[in-house]
């Protein structure tokens, strides 16, 4: 095996297979947004703090700005686009809408993925567990209250 600066990778994103040649230096978030044109996942801080780029990688919540696309070779990725089946909001998304869990909406894709990961692991989280579950996601509008309410409602 030799180190390479460009590599063909295969990923499964929201159930669809993609094969693309990418630079080794390409961040996963750029690959998802620019190469696959799945622009639901956002770039907020690009320093690993804000969580707007959160996606599930083989079922595990990660920040896709702190991963290279080549590290995801062979992985199954879930992004916010995968949540709504046939254009219908899923229960979590509907709860965010019902509870005003967003204002500008920039953090929402990351919040939804963090909440998805939390609810898969913990079907009825306490408020404290919800807050810890979204600790890696920053929202500058809502003050989090309605986001927590939305996740609580989605769990019920």
């Amino acid at each position: 095996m030799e180190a390479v600066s460009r590599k063909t990778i295969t990923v499964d994103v929201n159930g669809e297979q993609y094969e693309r040649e990418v630079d080794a230096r390409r961040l996963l978030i750029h690959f998802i947004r620019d190469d696959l044109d799945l622009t639901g996942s956002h770039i907020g801080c690009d320093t690993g703090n804000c969580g707007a780029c959160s996606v599930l990688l083989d079922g595990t919540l990660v920040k896709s700005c702190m991963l290279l696309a080549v590290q995801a070779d062979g992985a199954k990725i879930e992004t916010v686009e995968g949540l709504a089946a046939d254009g219908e909001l899923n229960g979590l998304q509907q709860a965010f809408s019902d509870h005003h869990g967003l204002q500008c909406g920039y953090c929402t894709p990351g919040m939804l993925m963090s909440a998805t990961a939390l609810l898969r692991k913990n079907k009825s989280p306490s408020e404290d567990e919800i807050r810890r579950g979204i600790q890696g996601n920053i929202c500058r509008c809502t003050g989090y209250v309605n986001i927590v309410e939305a996740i609580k409602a989605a769990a019920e």
Partner: protein
Amino acid sequence: MLLREVEYARPASVQEALRLLGANDGARALAGGQTLINVMKARAASPDVLVDLADIGELRGIELGSDGTLELGAMTTYSDIIDSAEARARPILGEVCDQIADVQVRNRGTIGGNVCSNDPTNHLPPLLVAIGATMTIVGKDGERSVPAEEFFLGVYMTAAGPGELLTKISVPPGKSDGFASVPIGKDGTCIVNVAASLDGGAVRLAIGCVDAVPVLLKPESTDDGAVRSAVQGANLDPPWDVHASADYRRHLAEVLALRAVAQAVGRN
């Protein structure tokens, strides 16, 4: 952000990783990447080659030996440790890992990456020094064991040199441990942190964030006076920054040492 051009390899064995690391002076091991990728964005590090350790199975996993020794593969993530039944043999490990950053970072960040980056504000260097962990390092000349207190050499520098790999961390059995910190926001970067451990009558304290490496102290007893005088006797000369003056860090070191020891005593 666009990183500087870099080459990438994902070897399947330690031997192959060592060959790749040895083949280029600019090669660096990539563990969870929760520090390295960000410092590459800032150009604070510009490796020529990244050797991704993700596919090396022998670097992962947690084993509990019959004598109670825990062996943690260097690529074991914080989340793996938090969720592991075996790791509860030394409960402080999971408790401290659960104070690091957030879910996403805990899912990717590894115990080996944390100690090898040896940022003086990291949680695990003082903890592993206090609880007497042993690091296993593999290089082209074979394998060696280094006690944690000799592993940390300077800011971002450890005994795992160029072309070498930390493969596992061994933690002896015990439960009388404590950890206290003042972080910047809950689970944030530590301003000062202190780990304490009791082994029989002996007390081991390791203070983080006040020097290039954890400061190991051995107070004569767990009495407040003995702990205070040990910290004062260390003549700490901590750095100052926007978060805390040097004086305040010295003050915190003493207070947090008392808290960490009290926690350890409470579990004795």
